[in-house]
């Protein structure tokens, strides 16, 4: 099991939780597990079977796009951060 940090913009999709557990040996499995349980997350995270261009997924602080993308293997107990673009400054 890994811990997925949910950004404030997406918390309403997961019942307000700041962090949710998810299972999977790869980023793809882990996100699938998450999106199966919280289906409204899917359009926020995935586009054309890849990570959407307006969101970043970090595994232990590294952008998974710079690793093996959705196929990046995830060790048990890892921390994953979901980071959608955020514009607010006002």
């Amino acid at each position, binding site marked *: 099991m890994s811990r997925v940090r949910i*950004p*404030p*913009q997406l918390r309403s999709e997961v019942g307000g939780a*700041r962090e949710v557990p998810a299972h999977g040996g790869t980023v793809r499995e882990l996100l699938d597990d998450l999106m199966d349980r919280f289906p409204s997350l899917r*359009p*926020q995270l995935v586009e054309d079977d890849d990570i*959407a*261009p*307006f*969101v*970043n997924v*970090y595994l232990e*602080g*590294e*952008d998974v*796009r*710079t690793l093996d993308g959705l196929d990046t293997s995830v060790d048990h107990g890892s921390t994953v*951060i979901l*980071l*959608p*673009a*955020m*514009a*607010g*400054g*006002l």
Partner: protein
Amino acid sequence: MPNYRELLQQIKSEIDEVDVTQARDLLASGGRPLVVDVRELDEWTEGRIPGAIHIPRGSLESRIEQAVPDRAQPILLYCAAGNRSAFAAKSLEELGYESVSSLAGGYTDWKRSGLPTELPRTLDAAKRQRYSRHVLIPEVGEEGQLKLLDSRVLLLGAGGLGSPSALYLAAAGVGRIGIVDDDRVDASNLQRQVLHSTGRLGEWKAESAKRTIEELNPDVEVVPYIERLTSENVERILADGWDVIVDGADNFPTRYLINDAAVWHDIPLVHGSIYRFEGQATVFKPGDGPCYRCLFPQPPPPELAPSCAEGGVLGVLPGIVGSLQASEALKLCLGIGEPLVGRLLLFDALETEFSEVTLRRDPSCPVCGDSPTITEYVDYVEFCSGRPAHA
């Protein structure tokens, strides 16, 4: 026990002395020594050898390692007549500096020989007092403060993030601050936008910011732009010449526009954003790390962008993130420290937790990548349709 004259003669016999002709030749040579003026401040302000740095004799030993960490760096010391610098040379040799010489005859002989001199720029008494806490920091000092006074920083937005940035940059003596904002002060702004006040309700934020800044520090010239940044005006605004841009915009179109402009104009961009209890900051430095589009190649579709009405922000949060942006901007102006390049700092006020993720330049980035596909400004549609966005 030797008297002063005897001691001076003894010291001079133990160090390397050069006359003005030799010094001139040394300075014209490839292995140019660092010239250190060891006179007092009042002597230094009346003229110096061009390119010299100033470390008064009294603090030479304590400050030289910071100024010259490399013991192999050749150093040429001078004072008024060559006596203080002789003692100084002896001291530096004892500290392990390998190639130290003292200018015989000192600045007096140098000037008398008709060799070039320059009047150093210095802070006047009022500025020295105002910025004394900066001048005291070795990494800033008088030179650094003069650099800040010469610096030009453009702020996008005089709102939540822009408020603390503007205040601290102005207090620090950044000489020219541009403020792009097309909004007026509203009562709902005052919970966090500390540039403005109740008496300013209804005023243009850029004008209100100008008044606040000028009251805080008359050394600062404020250039207000009461307009929204667009593809039509971005070139004109950047043509006014800015060393650093601080992005405190509240909307995606402005953030993409300024990112692309900063890449094309090679200007470092200090990014910050906030939402409820959480904020982010990073520095996009063209040629030295990723840009915003490496991070997010394109904005989210309007239906997925959080609406402004759902937003909300803890009033102090922009104070923290905007101050981090100001700190990064000052470091960039001064050329010191490690800016937040390639690192995105995440702050969670509820948990009081800072974390960092690594950002890398994307070789396929549409703007700063190896084969850019975006070469003209893009005006994205504003997402937050419930109210106009401002920057």
